[in-house]
């Protein structure tokens, strides 16, 4: 009995709130009604910052935003998005495609951003979701050297390593040499023709790799492209010029139901963010949050102001 009452009460409350908000929206802007938006994120600081970017730009344009951050991993957040407990979140193209379409029946992630985004949209259709424009910023595997190494050997991209690799030590996760890891040692060999003097098993983009690179125990390290220590330690991320890594560009994924209620402003605003979110901009924000311990809310607001997206 009690539970039934609670549920009914909750439903009534939701209905009242929803109608009240709808009314306010219509009256407030004079144009089309702005739907309420629930922005979600996984439990990772980069995701919270991205969620703040989306939430704040929407709020500045008259949307009523609810934040549901740090929900959990993708295994929890994706079903929440699908079922409407959240309306949108920041995603990574290749990883989400592999997650939604596990066997690659609809599409397989590739190293190309556009191709992967198209494939991902096909896979998302069944779940009534839309992927908006993807940013240039990625969170994928990246090979990193120290500033000293980059300057002395004039390194900018991975293929610049070819004359030096045979005298350099590579560091990365212990599984890097495995033939099942095409992004690591096998891929460096087949795509770039790079064979290193030695490999030092460390961790997957964690403190060991950062410390080993910093302490010159390795020359080249495998980190994530948006790792805050790249900015903090002045490391140089080598451009993946021959496209070894799958395209894990950052893009907002939105429920179709929300887009249908909207007049297109939401899509335009979020695409503006993606258009300005470069790798170095993202890494700088990650460093401010993870290393300088600033609040992601403030970091996101400062960035949006700098880009002229909010006042």
């Amino acid at each position, binding site marked *: 009995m009690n539970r039934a009452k609670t549920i009914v009460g909750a439903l009534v409350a939701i209905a009242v709130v929803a109608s009240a908000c709808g009314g306010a929206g219509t009256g407030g802007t004079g144009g089309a009604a702005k739907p309420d938006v629930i922005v979600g994120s996984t439990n990772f600081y980069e995701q919270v910052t991205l969620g703040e970017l989306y939430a704040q730009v929407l709020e500045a344009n008259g949307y009523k935003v609810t934040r549901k951050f740090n929900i959990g991993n993708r295994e929890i957040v994706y079903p929440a998005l699908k079922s409407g407990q959240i309306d949108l979140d920041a995603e990574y193209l290749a990883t989400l495609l592999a997650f939604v379409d596990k066997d690659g029946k609809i599409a397989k992630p590739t190293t190309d951003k556009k191709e992967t985004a198209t494939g991902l949209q096909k896979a998302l259709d069944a779940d009534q979701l839309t992927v908006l424009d993807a940013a240039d910023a990625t969170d994928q595997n990246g090979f990193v050297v120290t500033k000293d190494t980059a300057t002395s050997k004039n390194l900018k991209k991975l293929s610049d390593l070819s004359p030096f690799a045979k005298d350099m030590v590579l560091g990365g996760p212990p599984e890097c040499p495995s033939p099942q890891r095409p992004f690591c040692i096998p891929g460096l060999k087949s795509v770039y023709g790079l064979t290193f003097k030695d490999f030092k098993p460390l961790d997957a983009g964690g403190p060991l790799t950062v*410390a080993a690179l910093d302490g010159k*125990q390795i020359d080249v390290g495998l980190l994530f492209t948006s790792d805050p220590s790249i900015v903090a330690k002045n490391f140089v991320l080598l451009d993946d010029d021959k496209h070894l890594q799958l395209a894990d560009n950052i893009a907002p994924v939105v429920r179709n139901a929300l887009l249908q209620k909207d007049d297109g402003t939401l899509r335009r605003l979020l695409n503006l963010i993606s258009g300005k979110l470069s790798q170095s901009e993202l890494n700088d924000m990650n460093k401010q949050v993870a290393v300088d311990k600033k609040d992601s809310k403030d970091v996101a607001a400062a960035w949006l102001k700098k880009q002229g997206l909010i006042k």
Partner: protein
Amino acid sequence: MSFLGEVARWFADPENWQGPHGIPVRILEHLELSGLAIAIAVVIAAPIALYLGHTGRGGFIAINVANIGRALPSFALIGLGLLVAIPLGLGLGFWPTMFALVPLAIPPILTNTFVAVREVDRDVVDAARGMGLTERQILRSIEIPLGLPLILAGIRTSAVNVVATATLGAVVAGGALGRFIVDGFALRQYDQLVAGAILVALLAIATEVSFGALERGTVPPGIRATP
């Protein structure tokens, strides 16, 4: 059966015996790491235990404090060691692992050495004192020689613990035999993983046996049981 065959094939592969990542180098690294940990533990624990055992003071507190070393998880200490070692420029692997191994090695050495000195027949010590030996002479020529087998038994226990635990060093990018286990797991090469475990076990047994022999060799002739 076929899996054991794979492990045997791994051992038979000459490539696994060569170069900077081969079995001999890894064993040497393992011995270097364990040996230094034991040496540091002896230097720290033995003087304290000898003093306390000889004077008979404060032993209870010392032993209980040392026993905290047994309660601290080595895995956590390695992580802590990493936090200490990196800012000090000591690098990865060796020193962070040392940070975990020394506290593990101290308690058996401390306890056994204290008990070894304490348990020496008081009549012998009193007689020595009556003959005019100084306290230092009593310790050096009576208490230590008579207690030596028990002291060595403490070092043996520590050494076996340390040899088995030094495996963890591979988690913080160290060398030694743990490398085979951690890499075997990461690469899903289970033959390598099991081979690494066998090597660690063999090394621990070898440590146990050689210290056992050393203990028997150090029993003073006067109190050696005649067969």
